[in-house]
């Protein structure tokens, strides 16, 4: 031990730190460990009105480690296409389990569901067609490299999101009408179709709005909306909102109103060197 080194921590503290440090993301682990070694050391050598023990801090260091882990996940997955699809899939599973529980098992559910599925297979393409027909589309910029890959990924994401949303709307409508089915089967069937169409139209509206507000390259949700232009200068320049991709892939300009300046939302790619100072 060097003459200036502080005395080591008690065994309990060292074991606790070793156990909890595995929760902390690797990039932040060294600093977390240094912080908590210091905090625990000062807890034992503290002269104050209220003496704190290592046990007082153990919950804090666990919460701190969990916060860092959750934050790293939030940064890594927040707004991503994977998170969006996983959330929709989880909601579908939850609704499916609820349907099974309400019916009291798979066997009594199937005859009821078979009839509803026929309605679903007929109504879902019609609802999707109407929603696709009325949705606004982005003017995709043809400038970025590898655009075919991005277009395929965007298309696959939209297809997966649409399928999951339709399934979720169907399951929700089934759950809603199932209690009525025992007393009024015909009314229940009619209401189920009606609810499905309403839910699906609303959900698909969200699907298109969400699709539009995602980066065209990485499919992350865009952020930092900023107002651009002034409504009173509408004849001289466009006005609306701009949102950017956090990864720096591009920005989306959404006009406040349709004008000759900008008729619909426009995606602008940023060059990979957009955040570097311009060379003179």
């Amino acid at each position, binding site marked *: 031990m060097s003459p200036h080194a*502080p005395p080591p921590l008690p065994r309990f503290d060292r074991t606790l730190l070793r156990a909890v440090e595995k929760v902390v993301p690797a990039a932040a682990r060294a600093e977390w460990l*240094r912080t908590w070694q210091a905090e625990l050391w*000062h807890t034992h050598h503290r002269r*104050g009105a209220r003496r704190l023990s290592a046990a*007082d801090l153990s919950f*804090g*260091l666990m919460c701190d480690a969990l*916060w860092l882990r959750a934050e790293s996940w939030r940064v890594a997955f927040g707004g991503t296409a994977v998170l969006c699809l996983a959330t929709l899939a989880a909601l579908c599973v939850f609704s499916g389990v609820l349907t099974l529980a309400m019916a009291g098992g798979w066997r009594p559910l199937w005859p009821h569901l078979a009839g509803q599925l026929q309605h679903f297979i007929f109504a879902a393409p019609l609802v999707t067609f109407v929603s696709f027909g009325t949705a606004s589309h982005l003017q995709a910029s043809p400038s970025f490299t590898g655009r075919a890959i991005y277009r395929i990924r965007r298309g696959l994401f939209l297809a997966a999101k649409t399928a999951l949303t339709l399934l979720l709307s169907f399951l929700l409508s089934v759950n809603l009408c199932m209690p009525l089915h025992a007393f009024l089967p015909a009314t229940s069937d009619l209401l189920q179709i009606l609810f499905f169409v309403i839910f699906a139209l609303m959900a698909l509206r969200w699907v298109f709005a969400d699709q539009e507000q995602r980066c065209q390259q990485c499919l992350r949700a865009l952020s930092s909306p900023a107002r651009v232009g002034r409504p009173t200068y509408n004849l001289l320049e466009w006005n609306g909102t701009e949102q950017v991709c956090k990864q720096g892939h591009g920005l989306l300009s959404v006009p406040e109103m349709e004008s000759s300046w900008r008729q619909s939302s426009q995606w602008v790619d940023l060059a990979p060197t957009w955040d570097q100072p311009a060379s003179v």
Partner: protein
Amino acid sequence: MNSSPRLSHSAALILKALSLGYCFGLDVMEVTGLPSGTVYPALRRLERDELVESRWEPEEEAAAKQRPARRYYEVTRAGKTAALAATQRYPLLARLLPEKRS
């Protein structure tokens, strides 16, 4: 337009403690009476939101006193504005915490 973020009562209390000169996690725990499970994650959140910033004590200074260097927190300019707004929102906050004796 008021652009300072709306803080929870605990976060406002912690920010107020930091702005009064209590700059270490343990000091904040002691003066606010909040548990460590509230104080340390709140400090992380405040730092992420750029209301406080953390620094390390100089290593030589700590080594001379035969103790490990500690991480301390300082309120940023945005944090001072947020603390002021929080004091207006929670008027009793100013009376809860004593100023740190230097």
